[in-house]
């Protein structure tokens, strides 16, 4: 089992951001992503759409440089005005070479 150490970036954001964020992830070197619909509560309680509290949880497995790139982009583009939370976990990934940015 070749376990490649990579990073899992988890982004929880308002649902309107699903499209622009996933597109942006691919543009910045991610090879894929996984999206889960969720609901929740945060400090701002920003409510867009007609269902308050709905959001999407986007997970993306990337290498460290891509992770940096993604984090910088989200911080700049979405932190000022949108309800977004982002965290990074270290993980060992099977077939990890598939997820290295090229």
């Amino acid at each position, binding site marked *: 089992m070749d376990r490649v150490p990579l990073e899992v970036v988890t982004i929880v954001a308002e649902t309107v951001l699903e499209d*622009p964020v996933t597109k942006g992830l691919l543009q910045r070197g991610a090879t894929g992503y996984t999206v889960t619909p969720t609901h929740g509560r945060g400090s701002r309680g*920003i*409510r*867009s*759409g*007609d*269902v*308050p509290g709905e959001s999407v949880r986007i997970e993306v497995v990337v290498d460290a440089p891509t992770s940096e790139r993604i984090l910088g982009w989200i911080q700049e583009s979405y932190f*000022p*005005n949108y309800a977004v939370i982002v965290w990074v976990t270290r993980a060992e990934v099977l077939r990890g070479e598939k997820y290295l940015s090229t």
Partner: protein
Amino acid sequence: MTDVLLVNLLSPITLAFALGLLSRLVRSEFHLPRDIYLALGIYLLFALGLKGGVELAKSPLSGIWLPMVVTLALGCVRPLTSYFVLRRLGRLGVPDAAGIAAHYGSVSAVTFIAALDFVRGMGAPAEGFLPTLLVLLESPGIQIALAVGVLHRNTTVREGSTRDALHEVLTGRTMILLVGGLFVGYAVTPAAWQEVQPFFDGAIFKGALVLFLLEMGVVAGERLGDLKRVGAFLLAFGILMPIVHGALGVAMGHLAGLSVGGATVLGTMSASASYIAAPPAVRMTLPEANPTFSITASLAITFPFNIVIGIPIYYQIATWIGG
């Protein structure tokens, strides 16, 4: 007037809406499942389009041009009046004023349907081409308000986001189902239509509307807590702006040759505010705007006002002018 109000108040539509609202007030967690709510909305819009298309095919189109021009004019004027009032009287910032104006420049299809049903019940049915007008009123107002907002603020727009937002409005659920339904309804043969009509019309349509309004009551009720946050000005705006736009719509409908029923429905369209198409477009294009303001105003103030009191008022105005 009180008679008309009472009839409207005791219609299953209004009562179901009130029940939904009430269920939130007693802190019930009752909710129609989200997908069912979406599906009812899809069904109502598609049925509306179909019936509109069938009517278009039946009636001569000559009478429709003037109302179309008038509707487009309402689509251009209403976002600007809204923006102006919000900026000058409400002293709101550019993004919030433009964002709310996008909502009040567009239209609520459910309010439209309720008006259609109301005038039919009053014995003054609207012209068959009214759903066609609804199509024309949805997007211009959003686009004009967003353009105003983007031009007037200083920050730069995130590249592509405005284009994406407009594409989303133009290819959104409402447009696909309403425009698509109009075409399908126009194209089907009368015999084929008759076979499916009972599914898209009459008691089933109205029953679906009742269930939809039950859930809309819940959804609006969830926003009641935000009423405090939006302040007295927006509360007044959410009631008075519709009355102004409603009276304007009725008057222009009358000038364009619409019947009392038709003018009432055009007035209601003009008085209504979007809470489906506008919010995501505004969120993407004017992210500094606080969505709580615009959605609470359109969904928790203007929508209930129109459903319960507004429609009878616009009807009354229409009978004074044109009855």
